[in-house]
């Protein structure tokens, strides 16, 4: 079975990075098991494959990872159609920025470290294409990707109002957070493997 991180990072079979990964089989296998749990062996009642793929494509583009973006865009197209894939691409392009940023509580000593930045919102036109649930999930994904320290009860309330269940919010939170891991491992190993091959 193809290992997804090997594929996203372009790991050279038999090379140094391949050997480093195989020296930590539990890490390698459970990163793969995480992908399997979120994208292959799913509970569609909490979040459908198209909903998961749209979020993943959006998050991959926000991370400026072209390989992962192409992978998840294909999954969006297969599970949700071309209009969805196109809408997600346009929104992600509009939502690109650099993080992490965000406000710390005004009454605390960290307020001096507060950094202003984009507050992403899905426009009405895109909202019609995506539907309320997916629109809300992308807004939440943008929050978690770029300003996780501003996560709030209000953000979860917005997801609930858009139709997300408690189980669904747990899955969505895992999904975005897992991608923050997967895309960084891929980016780091890609850098290591490039040096190895050079």
């Amino acid at each position, binding site marked *: 079975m193809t290992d997804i991180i090997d594929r996203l990072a372009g790991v050279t079979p038999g090379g*140094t*990075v391949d050997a*480093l*990964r195989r020296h*930590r089989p*539990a*890490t390698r296998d*459970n*990163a793969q*098991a*995480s992908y399997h*749990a*979120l994208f292959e062996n799913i*509970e569609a*009642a*909490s979040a459908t494959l198209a909903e998961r793929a749209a979020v993943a494509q959006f998050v991959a583009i*926000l991370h*400026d*990872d072209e390989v992962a973006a192409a992978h998840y865009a294909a999954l969006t197209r297969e599970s949700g159609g071309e209009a969805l894939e196109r809408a997600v691409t346009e929104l992600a392009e509009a939502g690109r920025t*650099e*993080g*992490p940023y*965000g406000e710390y*509580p005004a009454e*605390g*000593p*960290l307020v001096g*470290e507060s950094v202003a930045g984009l507050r992403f919102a899905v426009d009405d036109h895109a909202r019609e294409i995506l539907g309320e649930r997916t629109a809300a999930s992308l807004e939440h994904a943008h929050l*978690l990707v770029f300003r*996780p*320290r501003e*996560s709030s*009860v209000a953000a*979860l*309330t917005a*997801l*609930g*109002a858009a139709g*997300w*269940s*408690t*189980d*669904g919010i*747990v*899955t969505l*939170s*895992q999904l975005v*957070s*897992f991608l*923050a*891991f997967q*895309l*960084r*491992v891929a*980016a*780091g*190993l890609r*850098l*290591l493997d490039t*040096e190895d091959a050079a």
Partner: protein
Amino acid sequence: MTEQTIDRAEAATTCTAGAPAPAAAGILSHPEASVPLAFTQAEIGWLPWLEPAEEATLTERQYEGLVDRGRAKSDYFRLLVRDPDILRARTLTDKDIFYNANDGLPRAERELAAAATSRFNGCIFCASVHARFATHHSKRHDDVQRLLDDGIDAVQDAAWRAIIDASVALAATPSRLETRHLDALRAAGFDEQAVSDVIHSAAFFNWANRLMLSIGQPDNPPGE
């Protein structure tokens, strides 16, 4: 005690057999909680914003998701166990990255990568736990405390500077990790397995921070 209020997006939450539409999320808020405002190595608590699964109703699959049955006592893990398969895979990934330390990066430096990532992302809870672990394994309380008090740019020795810089560069979105960060780690004496371990330890905390921040809040223990 913390006052806990339940605010449901929809009034009807009764689940009956054969009714597949899940109820909209019930949100928990904690208006009386004491929120930590600064990074600390002290033990602090965590309060969920969504209802954890009830311990009495946990299935065998959910216990497998918890990995350690004792985690059924934790609100955090009983909330995550609503999606047991990803919780199990995540927990096993976490344990291997941080505890499989026969070679590669020493435990203290794995915890330092976790603490630096948490400091940069702004996860006061995660930073408290892993700064404490970094101090425990390194016996360098003051160096760890400087990371918490003065931030990622505070003065550190060359090896810790290399760990913190690589972790922070990787935590940026998009990633700013470059060859020079990996070279600095090698120059500080870390081998290729250790460099890979830095990447994994730091990357993992981008998962942990976002999960911990997304679904609940840190809480000062009573009396503080």
